[in-house]
């Protein structure tokens, strides 16, 4: 269900947090759904169990999941749509930030970037343009 790249310079637990938030935002992980145990996910991804446990702890602190002793970890229910939306904003912010950083490194100025962003908006949000 999740994929991480141990060779990357991005800490593994952050990659895992990103993946799980993405799954919650997309609804691949539904509100109230149980997550794999730390051991099961560590074996599934062939990564260290403490790394998985660290990701789960942070997700709990961010109120994306909840853990009850003896039962396991679950996607928080209740305000699930808001949670998912917030998780989605986190993921989108990260992706956009990377794109802007890359563009800057390529020597593009902010004005060109704004044009590119508007072009992307027009392509993927045609309904918003029609309504204005």
């Amino acid at each position, binding site marked *: 269900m999740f994929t991480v790249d*141990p*060779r*990357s*310079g*991005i*800490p*593994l*637990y*952050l990659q895992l947090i990103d993946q799980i938030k993405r799954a919650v935002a997309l609804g691949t992980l539904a509100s109230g759904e149980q997550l794999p145990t*730390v*051991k099961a996910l*560590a*074996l599934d991804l*062939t*990564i*260290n*169990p*403490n*790394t998985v446990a*660290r990701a789960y702890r942070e997700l709990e602190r961010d109120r994306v999941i909840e853990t009850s002793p003896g039962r396991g970890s679950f996607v928080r229910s209740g305000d699930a749509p808001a949670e998912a939306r917030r998780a989605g904003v986190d993921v989108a912010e990260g992706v956009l930030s990377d794109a802007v*950083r890359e563009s*800057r*490194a390529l*020597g593009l100025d902010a004005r060109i970037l704004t044009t590119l962003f508007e072009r992307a908006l027009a392509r993927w949000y045609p309904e918003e343009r029609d309504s204005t």
Partner: protein
Amino acid sequence: MNAIAITNLTKRYGAQLAVDDLSLAVDAGSVCGLLGPNGAGKSTTFKCLLALDQPTSGTVAVDGAPVAPSTFEYLAYVPETSALLEKYSVGDHLEATRRTYASFDAARAAELAATFKLDSKKRIGKLSKGQRTAVALVLAFAIRPRVLVLDEPASGLDPIFQRAVLDLIIDAAAGGACVLFSSHQIGQVERAADSIAVLKGGKLVLRGEIDDLKGDEKIVEAIFPSDAPSPNGLASDPRVRRIERAGRILRLHVRSDAAGVAHELASFEPRTVDVLDLGLEDIFLGAVSDDAAYSSAKDRA
């Protein structure tokens, strides 16, 4: 509690200093990857930890106590070159281990032997290097040890069996075992371990959680419109490991606060400043490279 605690360990062989004032602790449930070039002191550290060799000074403790014969009831050691008996079969070794260890789990042993496709009737003398490694691993994991010390545990194994070894380490750690293992294969360490200890010339040169190191160790790269300036002040900054200058490019290897360093570099008016992530291999190579020689060679280039 620290399942393994090495404190101020020094080991001399005559005039040669093999381990130099090493302190290293690993907790129960944690996996520490011990990295270093050949001759850095990894195997000597293992020998002193297991009381197979006497430290010149310093102490070692396993589960809070000095290493004694009873320690080996729950500690498993897989040495770099196997200590198996050539004339005896795989099955003989399993049987001898069963008789020696109360914690020997026969079902687990059979399962592990099947994982590594070992024929219990075969004599050790007839096995390949990889198969011998596999036998040593089966014997080690079959006693369900709380502490595992593995010297190059995947040497000679094909990629499928190497992955099986990682699974064994991960499974043991998830069950609360403490694992200290050395490997030249960074790929194994970055998967199975949560922390690393890097030795160079017998000294500990880097220690930390892998994810923390990846979060802290970065390259800040600035590109200038003309020749890159000497960033005075940053050269002696404790956050900066070393500086490379090549034409219009300035690269700072930082050990912490990459964002802060990038911000300060902006005052030199570069065209762009970028923070680049480093994989574990780069972090390791950075830690064992001869800093002075490395940067001066780059400066001359």
